[in-house]
């Protein structure tokens, strides 16, 4: 398989401008400038590049729907806020290939005719953010950014916005508020950011991994990109694998690679060969569990959805049979309760309620009615919250009520956690 996203990647010693250009970097600029922006968008849409930030929306379609006649100024936001537990692929891109990010932002901004772009970097990645700023200065000095960049007649300014830190800042409209210097609560869905985003102007937000595909699609064509995938997937994907595996890490593999291959071949299988797989979260902390019977599901948007979960960020979190699933769900729910922006009632006050119940169960204080109560509360939290944070937050919990029903019952009946013994051994 051809590595495209990881082609230039070097975590310890990322390429400077000269090295990057010497290995083919920034060549997509000329390809792009020779094309009409609409043509680029058409190609990206034809390539079926789907968003890597979690929702999997078609990138080309999003760009097309914004409209070529959107009023100026227009903005592009590159989302590098990556805070979804289990997800660390964007960190690899940021620390490993800053110029690849800049190149893809330039090409994408050209396609969208955006004159200002923001790269929103999570605060914990500040070191990488500073490297990125240096790389931007290099590119500016070389005339690859700024007025009439590369002689194209196109102007672009890129700002790096370092986040003050909060998971919700990754949500596109909260991020817009954060950049403007407002409290990063999400904004209403209507009007859409594509028409009323930053300072009320048309704004397009994409995950950094999504954008890094764009130069390659331009250079090699839509058909080439589609064929990179297998089992019906298109392109490659940076899969993150973590949890109870031997070799956790980021792996660039074809979209559609089955989970079994990811876990057992690339990540080296479970930590301890004597253990068995309990289940896994396929797309980060806000996706429903998959079970051992799903190991052969191709890791691509539609097949994972058919299996009842979401590809999300393509980050697999692996649980073995020493991991208490209730404890895991409690940890996840606590994370979301802690990171809730506090804007809407179901999320702000519902998640801590769930934590309270889960904690009771996990510590052997659960009661027989708790499972129905969890289910009931989740139905409102999942459907009636203001933004997509809370629906995602309860996904693992809701699926665990089915998938790990016996575990819950065992906790409640025996009034203790059956995994207590193995937990002690782990330290």
């Amino acid at each position: 398989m051809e590595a495209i996203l990881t082609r230039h990647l070097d975590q310890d010693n990322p390429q400077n401008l000269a090295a990057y250009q010497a290995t083919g970097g920034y060549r997509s600029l000329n390809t792009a400038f020779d094309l009409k922006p609409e043509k680029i968008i058409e190609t990206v849409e034809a390539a079926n590049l789907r968003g890597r930030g979690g929702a999997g929306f078609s990138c080309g379609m999003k760009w097309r729907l914004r409209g070529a006649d959107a009023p100026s100024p227009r903005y592009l936001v590159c989302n590098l806020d990556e805070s979804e537990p289990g997800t660390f692929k964007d960190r690899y891109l940021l620390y490993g290939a800053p110029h690849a990010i800049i190149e893809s932002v330039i090409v994408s901004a050209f396609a969208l005719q955006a004159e200002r772009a923001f790269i929103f970097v999570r605060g914990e990645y500040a070191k990488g953010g500073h490297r990125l700023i240096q790389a931007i200065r290099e590119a500016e000095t070389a005339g690859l950014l700024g007025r009439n960049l590369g002689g194209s007649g196109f102007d672009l300014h890129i700002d790096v916005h370092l986040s003050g830190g909060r998971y919700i800042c990754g949500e596109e409209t909260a991020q817009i508020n954060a950049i403007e210097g407002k409290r990063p609560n999400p904004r209403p869905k209507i009007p859409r950011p594509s028409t009323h985003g930053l300072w009320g102007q048309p704004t397009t937000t994409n995950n950094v991994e999504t954008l890094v595909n764009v130069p390659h699609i331009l250079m090699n064509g839509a058909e080439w990109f589609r064929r990179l995938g297998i089992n019906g997937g298109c392109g490659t994907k940076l899969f993150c694998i973590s949890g109870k595996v031997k070799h956790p890490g980021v792996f660039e593999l074809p979209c559609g690679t089955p989970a079994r291959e990811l876990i057992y071949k690339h990540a080296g299988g479970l930590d301890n060969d004597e253990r068995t797989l309990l289940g896994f979260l396929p797309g980060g902390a806000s996706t429903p569990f998959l079970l051992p019977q799903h190991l052969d599901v191709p890791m691509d948007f539609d097949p994972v959805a058919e299996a009842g979960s979401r590809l999300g960020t393509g980050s697999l979190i692996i649980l073995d049979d020493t991991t208490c699933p209730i404890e895991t769900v409690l940890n996840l729910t606590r994370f979301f309760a802690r990171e809730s922006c506090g804007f809407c009632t179901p999320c702000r006050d519902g998640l801590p309620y769930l934590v309270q119940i889960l904690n009771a169960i996990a510590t052997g204080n659960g009661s027989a009615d708790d499972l129905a109560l969890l289910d009931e509360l989740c139905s409102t939290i999942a459907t009636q919250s203001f933004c997509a944070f809370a629906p995602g937050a309860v996904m693992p919990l809701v699926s665990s009520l089915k998938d790990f029903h016996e575990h819950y019952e065992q906790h409640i009946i025996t009034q203790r956690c059956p995994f207590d013994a193995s937990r002690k051994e782990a330290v």
Partner: protein
Amino acid sequence: MDTFLIDGQSVTFEPGENILQAALEADIQIPHFCYHAALGSLGACRLCAVEINPKDSDKNARVVMACLEPAQKGLEVSLSAAAAQQVRRHVIELLMINHPHDCPICDEGGECHLQEMTVACGPSYRRYRGNKRTFPNQDLGPLIHHEMNRCITCYRCTRFYQDYALGNDLGAMRLRNEVYFGRFQDGPLENPFAGNLVEICPTGVFTDAVFRQHFARTWDLKTAPSICPHCSVGCNTLPGARDGTLRRVRNRAHQELNRWFICDRGRYGHQYSEHNTRPLSPRVSGINTDYRSALAAAARKIQAAAERTGGIGSVREDLEGNVMLRSLLNDLKGIFTAFNDPELEAATLTAVSRMQELDNTPHLAALEQIDAALITGDLTVHAPMIDLALRQAWRNGAKLAMLHSSVAPLTQFASTAATVAPREIHDMLTQLYRQISRQPETNDAVTQTIKTIAATLSQARQPLMAGVVETSTAQDIIALAELAKAFEPAAQLIYVLPGPNAYGAALLSAAGDTVSLLKAVERGEVQTLIVAGSDPFSEPRSGARWRVARQKINTLIVLDCIATATAEAADILIPVAAWPERSGTFVNYEGRAQGFSTVFHRPEYLPSTADIISEISRLLENQLCDAASMLQDSFPGFQAPTPGTPGVQISAQHLPIRNNELMQTEPYSSDNGWQAALTSWLGDEPLAGFSPALTELAPPDTALINPESAARASLKSGSSVRLWNSVYSVETCVQINPSVANETIAIPRSMLVRLGIGHGDSLNLEQLV
């Protein structure tokens, strides 16, 4: 109009309305917290869940937020659907997780929106087993009490405070279930509309700190429609009383005036009626007595003086009191005026006549729609709710241009603001007029400011001219009206008048009577002076003259409900009912007559001014008709409007004022020294001045001077100075303030009174070492 259905009932809607708005207008109560008619939809509380069945579509029924869902023709909405009910029940259950169960002692009890919603939607029993989250409270000053544990995070407070009232010292801190609404640090809320938090908060987080000091359960309060007596806007209020004392004042919605809000002076100024210096017993020669003896004494003195009786009505006295006093003096052939300062009389009469002539004075709701304004003076203090309406206009994109001599908070939102010394305003307006009518004189050095303001006004669809009578001369007022005329018929004109019934007082006054009366008193031609609801001794410009002239008066009879300097000096003091203790009529700045009713009676016998004058006339054996027929005589066809109705435009003939009649006032003394300017603050109003909660917030008495003028005179912040006019002097210290005009010393009213000078008069300054 198109319609949709809520549980089978047809509801009409305007295009652009959402389901919740349309339902509330049709009086269908969809439960909600964060939505408020003035603030619009937010979608945060998630209580307004309804089920919708999209017609002609294969989509399933789904639960949506009524406040975010556009109303659509033929839509079927269900409030009663089980799915929607479950969501509402869950939302209430979640909100009640942390809410304290302190309802029995909560100030909000009886008018708690949260309690109503909980009863309407919520589970009655608690399932949550964990601990409650608790918060510390902040000290937000004397007006508002803070109880954060009761918060349900609907964001109404910050949306009102920041987005609507444009304040910036109350905010939402932190996140998750720890969102905290408060200030950066303890301290009084700075916005002059902060008191509305008490009403906008659906639970008991922000409550009325003054009411708390003397609390009554809200369902035990006696209420009746009233009108705010603290400025000429005439906001509608709902005072609440219990056991013969006034406890609080709340807003009463008037769709053309104050809508859902009132200013803090209106809300907290009422403490004057409970002030410990309030006269509650008649007093003759310093000795308490009963009404019968006091009125008999008064009648005797009036009889003795016969034609040598004078009368001063008041801009804060109702139409009834003023008209009765005028009639009494008519019968006695004495001089009546409703003003106590000749220049204020001239300015007010001019202002009223110009507004009548132009006949285009907008109400507050219309003000929100203007696109440009020229404002002279400080509206925030003199007519707070006009300021609030202009803040809405600003939010809608209006350009505000301001000319001011001293501090004027609205300048924060001005696109052009220039400081102009009091005596130069006229010149500025004249230049502006020439610029607009394109006839600049060759020697006019047209400044950029003038050009910008002229351009702003000329480009506007509907420019507004707004002036403050108290800090204007009659000439300034004419100049502003001329500007408005240049834009006829589009232009609107507002003068903020110096009292809740200044318009009515003007209609009952004849130009020049104030100066005639003052001179007559000075000449010893007035033996008995009746003063009703007025405080001539505390008038900046003429107060000193009145105080001196008082020696020439045999008997000073004062009718009032506050212990003014004039009342303190009275030979016969007759206490009258305060506003909520009587009924009457005020005419606001638009000429809108509004009635107010008696909310309650105090234990003491306290008649109204009109009643007292009627009684005096009876004792004089010349019984006057009742006030209503007197008003009919003055204003043919006039019917005092019923309290609680929107009021009626008073149909007086235009005031018979000619310019030359107004010029009798003495011109400013014109040496080359400093000019005095009035600097005011929200509580600076005769009644509110007796409200301890407000006066606690008064700024220190200092002399404000701008940096440039201060530097020229080698003054620094804190420098001690002596200010003097021809006779009187005061010592104070300097504070540098860039909002003050050049060569101008901005001082509070009390200092002007002590110096015996008015806004714009000359002043000398000497630095003390």
